[in-house]
């Protein structure tokens, strides 16, 4: 797949501007669909495409849309542009460089689900992205692609850009909804799911930026075309974010199901400085880690799950042989302790425990039983909470300890990090 769909801005200069986007065929699909097709028919096409959510869970998009109750005409579309999972930096590419792809896809999605108000929840740190989006919305309204009576079809869509203000938990869809309502972003107990009871008490569809951006291509070229890309059960183009110890880190658009080894060695040019690979986190810091021997796996939802991890947000973090796994897990533990919203005791207390144990292991002062304790704390956090952030902290912990146990034991025996891990990381950065 050499033609870029989601990263088309890499091939077309200034695609961010409305006139460039339009002369590249932009908004033609929205025009055609709004004039010629019925909403139900669009939902069927998205179902037939096999599109699955790119925000982390891989839920079938058309099916989610189909869950909206038929009797309530008021409903909202929320775009999840909170992109905060460590190692993930794909949605930002689209927001900053191809905002009209998102807006056109939103028009199509909103038409399909008969919704007239959409919010784009964008993380607060994306100040530039928010400015670009707001400008794109203004341009699109002025051009008649958004707003009232779009293309004279009588269909209205008002789009509001809503900025977050620094809290990872706003990426969780019900945390996002609470935050959008002007509250602390405490995730809600589910069910009811947002499609039944969402923002402002109305049925709501929350979709990730990349998920929605597949909608225009699907309606432009057809569900059958979409299904020809990648594996049958999770088709389509996919954005892979690769960071850490590779020659060419970056966002790569490749078919869903691209092999992880090929991604690292062919697309990203392998490990710099002739170093050996030690480990890879395939889907953002929340998912179980792979050792160097486990990377012959295809990067799609089902294949990665079968191999014991998760595709998650597709944030692939590559670590070379010099990386201290205790240091790496300590950073992950700090993140989840910092980001736990504090509603559930196992998560609030558990993430604090995990970080304290990791500090003891790296800096010294840990007890003999602390490696076992890490595993116990992680076990007790899983499956007991309002949202899965607790699991997201526990899963990497369990996999790091299980797969790199000797390194953890070594830290215990040594009374701290034997190789001053920070030094090693620094050295490898300049290799």
């Amino acid at each position, binding site marked *: 797949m050499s033609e870029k769909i989601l990263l088309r801005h890499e091939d077309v200069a200034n695609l961010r501007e409305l006139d460039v986007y339009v002369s590249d065929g932009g908004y033609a699909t929205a025009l055609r669909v709004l004039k010629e097709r019925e909403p139900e028919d669009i939902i069927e096409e998205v179902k037939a495409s096999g599109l699955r959510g790119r925000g982390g869970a891989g839920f079938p998009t058309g099916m989610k849309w189909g869950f909206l109750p038929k009797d309530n005409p008021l409903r909202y579309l929320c775009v999840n542009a909170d992109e905060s999972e460590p190692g993930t930096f794909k949605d930002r590419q689209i927001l900053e460089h191809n905002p009209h792809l998102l807006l056109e896809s939103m028009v199509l999605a909103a038409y399909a689900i008969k919704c007239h108000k959409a919010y784009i929840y964008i993380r607060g*740190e994306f100040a*530039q992205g928010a400015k670009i989006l707001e400008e794109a919305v203004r341009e699109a309204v002025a051009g008649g692609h958004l707003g009232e009576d779009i293309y004279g079809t009588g269909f209205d869509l008002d789009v509001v850009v809503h900025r977050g*203000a*620094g*809290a990872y938990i706003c990426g969780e869809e019900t945390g996002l909804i609470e935050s959008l309502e*002007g509250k602390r972003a405490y995730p809600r107990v589910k069910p009811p799911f947002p499609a039944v009871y969402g923002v402002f008490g109305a049925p709501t569809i929350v979709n990730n930026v990349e998920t929605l951006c597949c909608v225009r291509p699907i309606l432009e070229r057809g569900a059958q075309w979409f299904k020809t890309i990648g594996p049958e059960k999770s088709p389509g183009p996919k954005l892979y974010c*690769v960071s850490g110890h590779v020659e060419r880190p970056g966002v790569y658009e490749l078919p869903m199901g691209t092999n992880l080894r090929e991604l690292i060695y062919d697309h990203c040019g392998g490990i710099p400085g002739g170093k050996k690979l030690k480990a890879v986190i395939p889907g953002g810091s929340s998912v179980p880690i792979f050792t160097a021997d486990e990377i012959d796996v295809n990067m799609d939802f089902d294949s990665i799950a079968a191999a014991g991890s998760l595709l998650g947000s597709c944030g692939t973090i590559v670590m070379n042989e010099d*990386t201290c796994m205790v240091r790496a897990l300590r*950073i992950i533990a700090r993140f989840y302790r910092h980001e736990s919203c504090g509603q559930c005791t196992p998560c609030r207390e558990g993430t604090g425990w995990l970080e304290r144990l990791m500090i003891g292991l790296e800096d010294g002062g840990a007890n003999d039983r602390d490696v076992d304790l890490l595993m116990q704390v992680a076990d007790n956090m899983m499956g007991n909470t309002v949202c899965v952030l607790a699991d997201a902290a526990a899963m990497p912990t369990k996999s790091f300890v299980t797969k790199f146990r000797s390194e953890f034991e070594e830290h215990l025996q040594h009374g701290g990090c034997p190789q001053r891990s920070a030094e090693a*990381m620094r050295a490898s950065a300049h290799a």
Partner: protein
Amino acid sequence: MAVEFSKESKAHFEEILTRYPKKRAAIMPTLWLAQKDFGYLSHEVLAYVAELIEESPAFVASVASFYTMYYKKPMGRHHVQVCTNLSCALVGSDNIVNCIKEKLGIGLGETTPDGKFSLDEVECLASCGTGPMMQIDDDYWEGLTTEKTLEILEKLAAG
């Protein structure tokens, strides 16, 4: 003197209200607007926002305190935030933090005596492929080396 929005910000606030079916949902954008106008969210500012939104000051304060980007104390003219999450740590964010600490003579969470810079570390800013990186105010600075970092700080210090 009681805090009050400028005429321009008042108009902006009225526009914000039209975006949501419920007034309370205007809290976050109004706090952003207030932070832009007043620099940080003091008790007086929070009380003012509460009055505008018709919620209690305690409610508005509890919302503001949940989100790290709302300032609860005065900040330096430039807010330097270095990402120290995993991908950036793998490519040397420690070096960048140390170099900034040394250059500015302050630690994390501190502000220089002249009020020009505040320094913090932050979690992942979705720039992991171009680390190490930092955010200064609204701008991202990516692919940092210590030389580049010093150059950026010097330019801002002079400006």
